[in-house]
């Protein structure tokens, strides 16, 4: 398997999804070699994690690289555009060298950064190639087309691949629309989540101001994620304006960093709701968890979200969600509110109606938890095992 990151050295959902999926595959008796572009300790015992390049993780893992395909950000905040490309070339060559000395039944590559390496290995070994698409370039780029070089490698790899896995029907449709890949070559395998026990709502919360205002009857609506075009936050703020018109006792908490930060701050000022919209930077750990806990409603208004794990994460914190219908998660998660990302009227209506009905919030919270409790990667991993077997058989027949 070819991947770009694994927890705890991950920048976002890609690493988490790869980790949990592989864990489930290992439980299904799959032997996995997982090649990453850096050397670090993952404390993973269920598969063989192989560093492609003898370099520290700090050269690779920063905020959002796997998604921000045209930008590379160091831990000190400095950004560079080219380095990711160097990394990507270095990985391709190194990973294919490693593959020469090993035997695989199937090659499984996650997202565009590994696709070039995957093609090189396929060329050398003629091993069946499965691409796992967690997002396509037009998702990551939001409303613009994205980086032509990335699109080229996505397109080439998808044409060459033996089969493509999309994390949602939404992503499958985008692959067909962007790259004209035949529909029957793409299989949808939804992401899932490793269920954790519900968090207790302890006394302390990092957001003490909001905690305090809640005792005075205020409600908190939160978004937690990167501030990029893909995430649809301007519509969220326009809805916030309309909600505040009806329910002035509402705060909007926006937790995240990204290139849209300045624009969003400006927009809230322009809408006259700066006092009700609270921006924090990107948070990890307790401050990340407390944001979910303090919220009465979590909103994921994404313009295009290949899967979108955060609404499922919110469940463990007892927080119900409103998610955009243009997300993969909305295909599998029933007990949440759903809206088209462009429908500001309905988004405002659903937010206002939800925060004004405690019984609705309670029912959403309880039923979502029922749904969450039985989630697992098992189904997804079963589908992959079946697919591996089929390609292995086909490859053997062709030899």
């Amino acid at each position, binding site marked *: 398997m070819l991947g770009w990151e694994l927890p705890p050295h991950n920048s976002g959902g890609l690493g988490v999804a790869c980790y949990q999926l592989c864990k489930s595959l290992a439980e299904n008796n799959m032997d996995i070699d997982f090649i990453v572009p850096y050397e670090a300790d993952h404390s993973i015992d269920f598969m063989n994690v192989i560093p492609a390049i003898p370099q520290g993780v700090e050269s690779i893992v920063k905020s959002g690289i796997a998604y921000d395909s045209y930008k590379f950000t160091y831990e000190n905040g400095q950004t560079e555009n080219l380095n990711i490309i160097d990394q990507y070339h270095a990985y391709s060559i190194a990973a294919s060298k490693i593959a020469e000395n090993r035997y695989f039944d199937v090659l499984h590559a996650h997202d565009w950064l590994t696709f070039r390496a995957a093609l090189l290995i396929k060329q050398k070994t003629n091993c069946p190639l499965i691409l796992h698409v967690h997002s396509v370039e037009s998702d990551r780029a939001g409303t613009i087309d994205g980086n032509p070089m990335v699109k080229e490698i996505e397109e080439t790899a998808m044409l060459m691949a033996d089969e493509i896995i999309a994390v949602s029907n939404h992503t499958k449709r985008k692959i067909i629309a962007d790259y004209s890949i035949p529909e029957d070559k793409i299989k949808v395998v939804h992401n899932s989540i490793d269920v954790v026990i519900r968090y207790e709502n302890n006394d302390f919360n990092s957001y003490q101001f909001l905690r305090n205002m809640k005792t005075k009857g205020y409600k908190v609506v939160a978004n937690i994620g990167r501030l990029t075009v893909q995430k649809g936050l301007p519509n969220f703020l326009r809805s916030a304006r309309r909600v505040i018109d009806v329910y002035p006792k509402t705060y909007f908490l926006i937790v995240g960093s990204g290139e849209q930060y300045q624009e969003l701050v400006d927009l809230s000022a322009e809408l006259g709701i700066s006092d009700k919209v609270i921006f924090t930077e990107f948070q990890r750990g307790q401050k990340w968890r407390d944001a979910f806990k303090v919220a009465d409603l979590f909103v994921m208004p994404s313009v295009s979200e290949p899967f979108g794990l955060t609404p499922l994460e919110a469940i463990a914190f007892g927080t119900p969600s409103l998610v955009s219908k243009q997300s993969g998660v909305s295909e599998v998660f029933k007990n949440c*509110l759903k809206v088209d990302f462009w429908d500001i009227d309905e988004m405002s209506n659903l937010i206002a*109606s939800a925060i004004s009905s405690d019984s609705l919030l309670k029912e959403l919270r309880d039923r979502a938890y029922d749904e969450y409790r039985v989630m697992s990667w098992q189904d997804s991993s079963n589908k992959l095992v079946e697919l591996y077997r089929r390609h292995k058989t086909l490859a053997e027949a062709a030899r």
Partner: protein
Amino acid sequence: MNNKKSIVLYLHVHQPFRIRHYTVFDTAINSDYFDSSYDSKASNEAVLKKVTSKSYIPTNTILLRLLNRYPEFRFSISITGTILEQMERWAPEALRSFQELVATGRVEIVAETYHHSLAFFYSMSEFETQVQMHHEKIYELFGVKPQVFRNTELAYNNDLARWAESKNYKGILAEGWDPVLGWRNPNFVYKPAGTNNIALLLKNYKLSDDLAFRFSDRNWSEWPLTANKYSHWLSEINDVNNINLFMDYETFGEHQWADSGIFDFLEHLPGEWLQNSNHDFKTVSEVIESSPPVDEISVEDTVTWADTERDLSAWLGNPMQNAAINNLYSLTEKIHETNDLSLIEDWRKLQTSDHFYYMCTKYFNDGDIHAYFSPYDSPYEAHINFMNAYRDIVYRITNHGLDVDG
């Protein structure tokens, strides 16, 4: 004393006034909760017209033909005030076809609440008003006075039976649920506990559900069910006086589609059944008059005809449903002080049990029957529309200079 074995067929006709996609921005501005655009799933006009052509007209055509063909054929219906209003507005031909049935004198109408509400459990005065409204509407349109009572969703308990007796009803209908029956079977006339002058008829849910739920199920071991086979089953039952087949009218053509063969089944059932001269059909009043109660039955906890639980949990099983209905009935006193008849009528239309059914989350994860009947994508949307309409009702009350909490 009549020793014939009788089929007591009773069909329930109802449509609610569904609430349109009604947002927080409509509240206190528009009060047109029930006016969906025609292409919406919540369009009352579109649903009524669809069900009229798929079910009411074809079924009534067959039933009228059967009444003409077989002098022994008879049955009972209940028909709510809300659907009668809708038929007057959008499907007068359907209303006429029901009037033709009743005019034969062999189709009995059963009493209930006008608004198909659960008012009995929340406000006695409101409940009695709605029953009275229904009586008046039935008399106006059909010229008959119902003598047997059924409560919304067959929701029944001892208190209801005593109430019905006090109002001089001859009989009352309920679900023939096993825990209620114990060792007995539903195929006799019973007497409710603590009453003297009223009879209790219990639905034979196994035989009723063969038609209402299982008829078109190809995985059912008895599929396909023919009138001949069904009639044979019924005639094989020993220890029986009357077989109570109670179901939604829409079983014919809407829940079971025409291509399932349900209309052929209906067309042939009376002929098959009446081949034996010891068989007949009776209306609910006729069976009560001809057969004295064989035993007394007590129902402390409310029993309904819904879901596997047979309780009120399909309507009142989660916090959203309870909040919605409690809020609505908390307005009972204030709303009458307004003397605003159109406001009171809108409030009553919100009492229709269907609104609470749409908010049911019990089986939402399995995408079951609740979802099939709902015009909304989720129980949450149903709650949101309802609560926004409820708040508009509150707003209208306050416009009359009255204070409302919440």
